[in-house]
């Protein structure tokens, strides 16, 4: 892992061992002030970029090269929470 950048409470760092790993992920969110949310599914490759927020750390990994995403999704990548990321390839000892 490379050094971390702290940006307004977010710790951003790069995890080279994970870059390129093919994964599926269950996502979804709601806008602040909204009672409406979504559930969505993604498949792609981890970019290696990570964000940890707060304490205890809430861990996020960026998924790019998306081959599966909601029809209306237009972004090139998405940040997904660690708990709902499912590797589709063998992963290092100790997991993601």
């Amino acid at each position: 892992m490379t050094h971390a950048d702290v940006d307004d409470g977010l710790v951003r760092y790069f995890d080279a061992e994970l870059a390129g790993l093919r994964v599926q992920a269950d996502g979804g969110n709601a806008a602040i002030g909204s009672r409406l949310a979504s559930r969505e599914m993604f498949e792609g490759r981890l970019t290696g970029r990570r964000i940890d927020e707060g304490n205890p750390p809430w861990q996020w990994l960026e998924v790019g090269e998306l081959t599966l995403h909601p029809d209306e999704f237009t972004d090139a990548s998405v940040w997904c929470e660690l708990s709902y990321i499912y590797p589709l390839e063998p992963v290092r000892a100790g997991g993601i």
Partner: protein
Amino acid sequence: MESNPLHTRLCEEYRCEVPVVAFAHTKDVIAAVTNAGGIGILGAAGATPDELRSSIKWIRERVGNRPFGVDLLVPASFVEGNREDLEAMIPAGHRDFVSKLQADNGIPDPTPDNARRGGLGPELLRHSRALLEVLFEEKVSIFASGLGSPAFVVERAHEQGMKVWGLVGLPRQARRQVEAGIDLIVAQGYDSGGHSGTIGTFTLVPEVINMAEGTHTLVLAGGGISNGRQLAAAIAMGADGIWTGTIWLATHESETPMFLKQRLIESQAEDAIQSRATSGKPIRQLRSKWSDAWKQAGAPDPLPMPLQPMLVSNVLAGINQGKMEDWMTTPAGQSVVGIHSIRPAAEVVFSLVGEAQDQFDRMAGVPVGV
């Protein structure tokens, strides 16, 4: 000793009297259901931290030590971007369509509410964390995560004596939550209101129960449940209780406007449609002139989240502030078909339990209604 099938592990562990959990955005519903022997879970998405704190205190003053909780829509994914860049991505044709809709139908401009202005990207995380801190500070006994995994706060919550619940729409999400030591999983099927999953309740629930078997994790059935026959079915499948939302919208205590309560009573299951017109994502809700307008010939496809809410949030606020009844809607599940009248929440609890008991009596060969 006779066993009571409605006295489940949920009742044992949470000291509630009946295995009925009510999700609602109205704190009065939460207090009424909790005092009737169930468990009320306040939907706090959309609230500010101060509003949430105030609601928790209000409920606690009315229910004392009885169990209640708070549901937050913690995110499971987000995209980065600043508001200005995203605004620029909204096509002129969509802006024209919405402006014309507003002008043609007399939809007023709303009073601004900056406290609720939609956040993006990491701002979502900070907002969720701020609401979570309120739960920890107020020592709310149950935190329910209505969307993303709550695994990241389980240890801290348990240290404080709090229980952590998670709503799932897929078996693999349930597996991760069981592994993370979540206290209770709500297996929420496709027929539920709002952000439902893609799997039907009767398929999802038994699979999740199998995963949780032999662990400390309890399972509730959710999605499409509005009567005691379904409560009995959930218990018979092995669930520890039911998670319900839509049926509380038309109770006396609910803040749902009266005309929407009337529409809920008149609605059939097929009137709870999935539409992307409000948020850009499929949300199961009551059909309205707003959802119809986006289906009419010549209407553009709704934009993706977050562009669609950025495009339409002002107009929707105008509809709500102007109380334009035919244009307003509410998230609602297919269980809307089970709403027949406006009743006190406690009466709904008693009906659910009474009907379920009748089913168990029938299965046991006991004459029902004699």
